[in-house]
Structures are given as structure tokens and as C-alpha cells.
């Protein structure tokens, strides 16, 4: 039973919250500016709670079941993080308070910068970017500014492997770069020959994801970076897949110059139904003074008696801010809680188990689902959701059918270089039992694909909603609803 919209629940004069009467004399109202109609719904608190509680149950989430959405690292979101982030000392501080009143917050940001720097090998970190793509924008603008500041205006070519996430080319374009796509070689690495032919003095840099979106670590990463550096380009690292590397590999040491972190992937801050994320950017020392400001610095070391003092600092050649205020502070609290809870061994444990889980699931299904590039994977792998002898079946059908088993489907149709891609990232917080159950379901689905394809074509069957008509949505373009015309007329 679909739930009515909040507008359909509305009835004149209902209220979900009330405010105190003014305790001051009432001022004259700006008569010319008053609106005559405010067509918002009117509902009671009880109805609001029921409405959103009920629709929430139509969602799958990490708290409900397996969620192997490749490239998104849907790991468990520890509950302590949520409690800590709600401490009034964190939620009720204004971004423009004087530093001496927010030393806890500044110190926390400083710590987080330091942890991220140590984990990645970068020299400096800015926490400001709001998400991965925002971090990319920041990083690519830094690359742009780097060249410009050296008077090197012609460097506008950005190389992007064909396996890259859509945000990479989109970011480059948004930053005024010209995008050139690089092919992958037969082992899933960047094609070195193709790379060499693009390496010239118009090269701004390369955006590389490592492990890449196939879940494969680029075996030539050092050489790739070297080639780009040799012609004066810089290397941007898309850190979406950092979960595979914690305590195992520092991207900066492989030659990457600037990289974003996804706190909402690697560092367990919740995905929130689509956000907020947080996309801090780390850079090598040459780029540190280009970071968006403000970053947090420790201006006084402190000792036994006096605590250290933290303050905001604007890097000397900053590209400027990429958003208002200082970034998604609420996510910093969660990420730092996670980091200190794990510590150095726990971080390595994350990478090891994430990679173990992906390889295990891959091993269980790879005889049934073709997995191109026959190598050990890192934290994820990409299988093909198609069989020659089951011509009607597409990856999407497999995905929809997986829902009937209580699992969220993998990422579909990405990366683009794998046919009918099923991009599977189990994450380290899943048990062997779950992975066994998933493999079993996927093998059964493969069998059904051949023997009873209709079952997949018409899936899902057991979810509260069946397949939704996306074509109709795009055609009708019903993007809003409103109170009925005769609202309030008895």
C-alpha cells in the first residue's frame, strides 16, 4: 500500500509544532512584502511520525541487509559515531564563533587532518570539500592553479582512463579542462602506450582511481605517475577506493599529487540516503599552499599546563573556498571517532578483510558469472551480468531478482568498459555466512536466468514495490505535487 504524500495528508489548521507567543512588543510588518499564500501542508506531529516511519520501511539500508553497491563502500555505520556527533558541544556551535570558544572543534579538525595525512602519505589536507566530486573539483582546480601560477596556461588536457567514474570527466569539464580518455590494457591497467602518446606539454595531468573501478590495483601506478610527472603534469587520485589500501599502501608514495578521501565510504560516515558526504583533499607539499581555506593549524604547541591552541589558516595561494564555512563538520566527528576506535591495526584490518571478502565472493561466483581480467581483486570486483545462452537477461534483471533474496543489488552498468557490469563491493563488515548466502542466491539466479528467465524479467516479486516505469517518469515529468485546488474549502 503506497503511502499518501504529505500534501495529501494535509488539512487546514493542523499543526505539528507550535512556537511561543512573542515575549516582545510586536513590530509593524513590512506590508509591501507580505506573502498572501503559503501553500504548505498542515499535519500533526503524530501524522508526520507515522508518515516518515512508514515510508522509511520501504528502504533497504546497511542496517537492513547486505548492500554491495560497488564503488560506494557501504560498510557498517557504527552507532557510537551517531551519538557522539549529537553531543551539544558539537551540534550547537556556530561556524563563525571566535576560535578561543571552539578549541575542541578546531582540535578535532586538526587531528583529522593529521590522521588522513598519515594514512595517505600526503603533506597537507583540507577538510572543506563536501563530497567526493567536490573534492575532485577542488583537486583539479588546484592542478589548474599550479600550472597557472607557473605561467603555464596551455596545460588544459586532462587524461581520464575509460574505467573512471563519471564524476572524473564531469569535474574536469567543469574546471575548464579538456578531457582525453585513456584505454585500459588487457590486465585492467592504464594502457601505458596510449598514455605515452598523450604525454606532452599541454598535459595538465591525469585523474586516476587506484584501485580502479574494476577493483584492480594498477600494477604500473608508479610508472604512470612518473610518465606524467616527466612531462610536467600532475596526478590526481580519486580516493573512492581507499578502503582497500588502509595501512597497506600510501597513495602519495606511489606518485599521486592530490587526492580526495570519501569519509562517507572509507571512514564509515553514513550515506544518509544520498548524502551528506565529505570529501577532504590531501596534497603533496608543493601544492599545500594552494588548498582551499581555511585549514586548521596549531599555532601554539601547548605543554603540561596549557593546552595547545588551534586556529584557522588561509594557505598563501589558496584557490579560495569551495563552499561556505569549513566543511561537513558533523562528518568529521564521526570519522575521527571511527579512526581512533580502529587505530593503526584496526585500519589495516579493514583493508585486509575488505579485500578478503571481495576475493572470496569473487571466487564463489566466478565460474558462473564471467569476471573479466583474471586477477586477484582488491576490495571489489566487476562481473558480467549476461550469458550468451540466456539472451534476454541483462544485469538489471539479475539485480532486481537479488532483491527477492533480501540483498541490495550491486552497482549496475558501471564501469562502462565491462558489459552489463555488476560491480560488487561487499566491504569488510559482512560475515562469511552472508557472503555464502549471496553466492548461493546468485548461483540460483543464474540458473533461473537460463531456465525461467521470466522470473528475472518480472522481478522483484517480494518487495513492496515492483519495477517502476522510468520511461513514464521521464516523459510525464511530474516533479512536484501540491495542495489540491479546492484545499480548505469545506
Amino acid at each position, binding site marked *: 500500500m503506497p503511502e499518501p504524500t504529505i500534501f495529501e495528508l494535509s488539512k487546514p489548521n493542523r499543526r505539528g509544532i507550535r512556537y511561543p507567543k512573542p515575549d516582545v512588543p510586536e513590530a509593524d510588518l513590512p506590508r509591501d512584502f507580505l506573502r498572501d499564500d503559503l501553500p504548505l501542508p498542515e499535519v500533526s506531529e503524530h501524522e508526520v511520525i507515522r508518515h516518515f516511519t512508514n515510508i522509511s520501511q520501504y528502504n533497504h539500508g546497511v542496517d537492513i541487509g547486505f548492500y554491495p553497491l560497488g564503488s560506494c563502500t557501504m560498510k557498517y555505520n557504527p552507532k557510537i559515531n551517531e551519538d557522539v556527533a549529537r553531543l551539544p558541544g558539537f551540534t550547537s556551535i556556530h561556524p563563525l564563533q571566535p576560535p578561543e570558544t571552539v578549541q575542541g*572543534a578546531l582540535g578535532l579538525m586538526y587531528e583529522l587532518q593529521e590522521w588522513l595525512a598519515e594514512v595517505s602519505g600526503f603533506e597537507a589536507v583540507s577538510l572543506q570539500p563536501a563530497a567526493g566530486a567536490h573534492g575532485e573539483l577542488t583537486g583539479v582546480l588546484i592542478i589548474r592553479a599550479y600550472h597557472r601560477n607557473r605561467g603555464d596556461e596551455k596545460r588544459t588536457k586532462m587524461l581520464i582512463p575509460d574505467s573512471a567514474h563519471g564524476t572524473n570527466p564531469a569535474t574536469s569539464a567543469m574546471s575548464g579542462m579538456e578531457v582525453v580518455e585513456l584505454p585500459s590494457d588487457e590486465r585492467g591497467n592504464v594502457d601505458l602506450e596510449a598514455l605515452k602518446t598523450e604525454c606532452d606539454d599541454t598535459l595538465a595531468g591525469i585523474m586516476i582511481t587506484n584501485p580502479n573501478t574494476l577493483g584492480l590495483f594498477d600494477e604500473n601506478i608508479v610508472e604512470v605517475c612518473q610518465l606524467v610527472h616527466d612531462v610536467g603534469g600532475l596526478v590526481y587520485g580519486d580516493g573512492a577506493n581507499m578502503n582497500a589500501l588502509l595501512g597497506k599502501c600510501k597513495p602519495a608514495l606511489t606518485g599521486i599529487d592530490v587526492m580526495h578521501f570519501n569519509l562517507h565510504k572509507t571512514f564509515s560516515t553514513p550515506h544518509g540516503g544520498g*548524502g551528506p558526504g565529505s570529501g577532504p583533499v590531501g596534497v603533496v607539499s608543493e601544492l599545500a599552499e594552494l588548498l582551499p581555506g581555511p585549514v586548521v593549524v596549531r599555532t601554539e604547541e601547548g605543554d603540561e599546563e596549557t593546552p595547545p591552541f588551534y586556529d584557522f589558516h588561509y594557505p598563501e595561494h589558496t584557490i579560495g573556498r569551495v563552499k*561556505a564555512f569549513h566543511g561537513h563538520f558533523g562528518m568529521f566527528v564521526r570519522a575521527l571517532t571511527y579512526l581512533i576506535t580502529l587505530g593503526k591495526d584496526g585500519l589495516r584490518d579493514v583493508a585486509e578483510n575488505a579485500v*578478503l571478502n571481495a576475493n572470496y565472493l569473487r571466487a564463489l561466483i566466478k565460474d558462473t558469472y564471467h569476471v573479466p581480467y583474471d586477477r586477484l581483486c582488491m576490495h571489489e570486483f566487476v562481473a558480467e551480468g549476461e550469458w550468451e545462452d540466456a539472451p534476454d537477461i541483462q544485469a538489471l534483471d539479475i539485480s532486481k531478482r537479488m532483491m527477492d533474496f533480501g540483498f541490495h543489488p550491486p552497482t549496475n552498468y558501471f564501469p562502462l568498459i565491462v558489459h552489463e557490469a555488476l560491480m560488487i563491493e561487499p566491504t569488510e563488515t559482512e560475515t562469511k555466512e552472508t557472503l555464502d548466502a549471496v553466492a548461493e542466491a546468485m548461483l540460483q539466479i543464474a540458473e533461473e536466468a537460463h531456465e525461467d528467465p521470466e522470473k528475472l524479467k518480472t522481478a522483484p516479486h517480494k518487495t513492496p514495490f515492483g519495477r*517502476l516505469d522510468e520511461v513514464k517518469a521521464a516523459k510525464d515529468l511530474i516533479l512536484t505535487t501540491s495542495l489540491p485546488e479546492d484545499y480548505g474549502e469545506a
Partner: protein
Amino acid sequence: MYTPHTDADREAMLEAIGVDSIDDLFHCLPDRDLPDLALPEGMTEMEALDELQFIASVNESTQELTSFLGAGAYNHYIPAAVDSLLRRGEFYTAYTPYQPEISQGTLQSIFEYQSLIAALTGMDISNASHYDGATAVAEAVNMALNRYRGRRTKCILSPRLHPQARETVHTYMMGSDLQILGEDLDPEGDPEDLISLIDEETALVIVQYPDFFGQIHDYTALGEAAHEAGAMFGVHINPIALGLLKPPSEFGADIVTGEGQPLGIPLSFGGPYLGIFATKKEYVRKMAGRLAGETVDDRGQRGYVLTLSTREQHIRRERATSNICTNQGLMMLASTIFLSLLGKEGLRELALLNYHKAHYAAEQINTIPGYLASPGKSFFNEFVVHCPRPAAEVNQMLLEYDILGGYDLSESYPGMENGLLMAVTEMNPRYEIDYLIDILAEESDA
């Protein structure tokens, strides 16, 4: 810590994979002998809580301090129902609703959010959020530039558009040849001053409503001038003010952006907040960001899906309208719940309460010799106080009384050393205002 495998599990799994050890899985890494991270050992949950409680306690929050700080982030009451729903795992542990059959909770809330924002702003459509108000403004510029496909290369920003939003536009546009005008006009001038800058190259004119100084202006003439020159007109709003004030659609806005933080989102030292972005239906294909649309499922049930994805990076790649991917999902949900709770009357009541309190405070300040609050201007819940000495000094003095006085305007407007921007909300009981007045009066005597 959160990894469940037992040793026996690991053994069995390695065997299934066909390797001998975990290390074998990492053979491909270039540096196999990475030294241990120079980081401490992990803590238990109870130790981490202790640590973070301590850090939080070091901050002086608006629960301890009396705050008149606004300037783009406002201290409002958040009804308990909001967080009680945000805490539901079904909401906050889901991600972007790519698979609509098991994401109707998120999708229906996006659809309702879009509807609420449309109702509030008077615009046809809204997207599912941008990162914050400032990036929403930058995306508005982006959209306008794309609309004219490079044929128009100027953008006019009111000097009283939030300074950090303007700075964000500059950063976003670093790689383009956009010319940004208007910012160095007299910040205390009239909105009409911008008209003279508009020409055939102008892609977009953006003003703020109420403006950064809290003032309310009639932007009709400016909007008309923009349209006459074929340019788009953008209005950046405070959503609470729209509980009282006529919507920007009435000034002919083509794009409405706004900082959604006041709609049930905590101050949280600046984020995560909510970027509001609404526009006219004709621009829907130019707009960035997620969009939910109504449809039906194969059982005939009404439902919602993400639609027009062909605008987005995951389909269109370098030709996408923007690179945005993850947005502010949970904050959007917070504001949807918030607006649902308040409704028509509640939002008006809240806006009025803010209005009356701010006006009371301004009036009282005007009784203090040397202080002048927003003379002769219409304003909402925020106003400029011209102090008898630098605002920085006044703030410093007030802090000794545990008062956050306001925003020192000289930080963004070099000529305005004595300008203090003060916000008053429903969270400031009268006694706090009176306390402020007493202290200002006392100190001005001294």
C-alpha cells in the same frame, strides 16, 4: 573492531580463493613493506566516547553562550520529531536511490522535498539538494553559463550576496572566462545600483533576499532589467523568511537558491547544511543534481524514481550539467520533516517571532548612545549595527559576558570596521536581548 571474521572463517576463505595468506592478496602493491602507520592503537567504544565527550566539552556552545551570530547560519529550534526520524537506519544507512523498488522511502521524501521547496519559493521545480547555499549559487552561475552556451560571459553578484557564496563562485569559475561584476559596488547602496551593470553579455544577476545585512528589498525593477537584457535573474533566500515574505517568484526569479540550514539542521560548526536550488520548469534539463519524478510500478502502484539522469555525470560524463553525485540527502530529509511539522501556520508563526524579536532588539539598541541599528530599512531577523567603535572590540567585550555579539562586517567589507551584523531568533528569549542591551549601555557609559 567492526570486522566479524573468526580465524576459522579466514582460513576457509583463503582456501576458497586459493591463496595461502592475506598477504598474498596484496602482492600487487608496489611497496610491500610499508611501515606501520604512525598512529595510536585503537580504543574501545567507551574510551572513544570519553575522549569525544571531553573534546565536545572544550567547546563553548550556544547552549552556554548567548548568541546573536547569524551571517548565514542560524540558531533555530529543531523539533524533536526531526531527529527521531533521521535516526532511523532505513534512512541514514541507505544511499542514493538507484534501485527504486527498495528505495521508496528516500524517493518519496525527495519528491515531497521538491514539492515543499516549490511551494515555499513559488518556483516550478526544485532539485534534490546541493551541498550548501554557497555551492547552490555557484551551480546557478554554472547553469546560466550553460544555458547561453558561452554566448554570455558576465555575471553580476550583489555586494550583499553572502561573501562566502561569492567567494565560492569565484573558485568554481576559476577555469572559465566568466567576468564577475557588482561586488565592489557600495555595500550600503541600493539594489538598483546593479542595473547599470547589466548588458547583453550578462548571463545572470544574483541578489539575496533578505540580503546579507538582513534587509528586505523589492527586486521587481532589477528582475525586469535583467530580463530585458535577456539575462536570468537569481535570488538567494533564507527559507524561514519566506514564511512571512512574498516568494522570489514574484520578483520574476528564474533561479532561487538558498541555504537550507535554518530548516531543522543544527549549526554543527558549519555543516553539513543544505543547498536549495529551484527554478522554472523550462530549465529542468539544464539544472544540476538529482531529481525524483512520479511514476507507477508494474503492479499499478504509484511510486517515484530518479529521473532525467541524462543530465548527470554518471550518464553524460564530461557533458553533464555538473559533477555533483552525493548530495545532502539526510539534510534534505530533515528539512522535509521540519517543513511538514511547521506547515503553513507554523512557518509563518516562526518567521513572525523572528521578525518581532529582531525588531525589538534593534529598537532597544537604538536607545543606546552611539549605536545605530539598521536605520530606516526593512529587515527580517538580522540587522547591521553601526557601533561607536570597531565591531571586533565590541565582540571581544561582549564575549567577556558570554555573549556572541555578531558578525564583524569588516571581515568581508573592509570599509565597515564598526559594522556588526546581529541575528535574533526564537532561541533568544527577551531576557537575553535585555541583557545584551544592559551591557552595551553600561559599557557605552563607561
